[in-house]
């Protein structure tokens, strides 16, 4: 792939964005064909941090493989684990206690907020604004502290187990989450004042990286990218899991289809997550935090599929079981992989700056693409 560096026969410039580039937030390698500043083609070259998690999972037991998935989309580690826990429960027909379901959903939403905050800061930095990075990290730190107290880890929490959650909540959990909600509602406003209303920012975002609803479907984009183009794609609404069918929240739909719409979807989703947490945090029922399961789990022979909504979109786990203690075949349908495929379509004919903006609003996490 490296002999492609240089110029094409038509005299177009070929440059490599990545694998080490400030805007790729990881080891993503994109080959850009440029005519001056205009982008003619974007071609991804993946695999720099491919760890073959799917192959690895084939030799791990149903309890173990969940922990590996924290390393896929490390910003939605909880939600990845949640998907795996759900599919094992589905295979074994385990009834998860209400308390565990509540805790899982609260944790998911906290993760979603933390992930969106990191996206907000990193995207602003791609656009050349540095201050948001620190503002968002201030809030994200609070979530990380809450996570650390309960799960013992800040990034790869591994809190979900088949049948519930691993441990009891920390006694301060509810109080801390509530104080976080109060603070966060104020800061969300601050974000808008600093970036959303800025003229330069709006000019950089509006009309850039447009993708229509039809293209979103055919490219398989999910999550905020799809919802910004007007496609209802929230798995929490389409196929609710745990207590998502009991809480009230809006699926944010924008019809712009451009970078600004994607930006708005994520910003508004943060307040919806707050809304979900507010409904649940005071009503966590008493009871077990984990259902009783056997020591060695064995899924019955068959195929299982579970979809969840991560911060980036639809994560699907597909397991083929032969009745053994390990999955025969496992496949993670990661949201980033499909979203990335739409990048070329989004930025053709745009300028390099727009490419950076579009890539920022796709919210790519490279281990999620490479797995």
């Amino acid at each position, binding site marked *: 792939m490296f002999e492609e560096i240089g110029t094409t026969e038509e005299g177009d410039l070929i440059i490599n964005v990545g694998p080490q580039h400030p805007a790729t937030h990881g080891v993503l390698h994109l080959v850009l064909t440029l005519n001056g500043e205009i982008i003619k083609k974007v071609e*991804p070259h993946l695999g720099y941090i491919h760890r073959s998690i799917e192959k690895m999972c084939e030799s791990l037991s149903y309890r173990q493989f969940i922990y590996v998935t924290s390393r896929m989309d490390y910003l939605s580690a909880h939600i990845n684990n949640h998907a795996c826990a759900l599919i094992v429960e589905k295979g074994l027909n385990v009834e998860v206690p209400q308390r565990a379901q509540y805790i899982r959903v609260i944790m998911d939403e906290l993760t979603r907020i933390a992930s969106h905050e990191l996206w907000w800061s990193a995207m602003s930095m791609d656009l050349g604004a540095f201050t948001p990075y620190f503002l968002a990290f201030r809030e994200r730190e609070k979530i990380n502290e809450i996570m650390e107290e309960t799960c013992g880890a800040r990034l790869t929490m591994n809190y979900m187990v088949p049948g519930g959650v691993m441990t009891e909540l920390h006694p301060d959990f509810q109080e801390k989450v509530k104080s976080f909600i109060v603070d966060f509602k104020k800061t969300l406003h601050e974000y808008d004042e600093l970036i959303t209303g800025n003229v330069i920012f709006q000019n950089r975002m509006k009309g850039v990286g447009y993708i229509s609803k039809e293209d979103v479907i*055919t490219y*398989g984009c999910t999550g905020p990218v799809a919802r910004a183009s007007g*496609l209802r794609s929230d798995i929490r609404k389409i196929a609710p899991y745990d207590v998502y069918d009991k809480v009230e929240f809006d699926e944010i739909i924008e019809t712009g289809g451009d970078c600004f719409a994607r930006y708005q979807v994520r910003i508004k989703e943060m307040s919806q997550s707050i809304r979900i947490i507010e409904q649940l945090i005071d009503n966590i029922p008493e009871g077990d935090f984990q259902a009783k399961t056997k020591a060695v789990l064995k899924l019955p022979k068959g195929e299982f599929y579970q979809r969840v909504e991560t911060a980036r979109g639809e994560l699907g786990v597909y397991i*083929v079981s032969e009745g053994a203690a390990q999955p025969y075949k496992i496949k993670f349908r990661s949201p980033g992989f*499909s979203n990335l495929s739409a990048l070329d379509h989004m930025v053709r004919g745009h300028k390099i700056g727009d490419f950076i903006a579009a890539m920022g609003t796709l919210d790519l996490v490279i281990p999620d693409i490479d797995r």
Partner: protein
Amino acid sequence: MTKEELKIKITEIHPEAIIDESGEWLNVSVEAAAFRSFAEQVRMDELDLDYVFCLTCVDWKTHLTMVYHLSSTTHRHNIVIKVKLDRNKPEIETICDIWRTAELHEREVFEMYGVVFLHHPDLRLLILPDDFVGYPMRKDFEDPINMIKL
């Protein structure tokens, strides 16, 4: 559309399809030769399966099976299409001109399982290095240096 309606519809399109109702969604097994026209029909017809949300391959040691999870964003029904392939010479028509998302997914399957997608516009290695030999996700893949057996 319910499972029953789907079943009737699919039988109309392709009478030879073997339909399995045991799983969560309808499993439709099609032979490789008929796959392409079947895919075109389920995309276009009133089934309107416009969204491929998962595309992968399973290595059964004796043969390979392509697994396509399809969904409709308007009707919200899902089906699973399975195509059995010869393990020594796995070849199947591409669907990446019907569903654009399949382009990268098919490249991934191509390098991991060795399935050749006919008429794919750009079938190259996506994740693995250019000089890589072998199909890592196949069950008999051996790499004594990098693989640790548990």
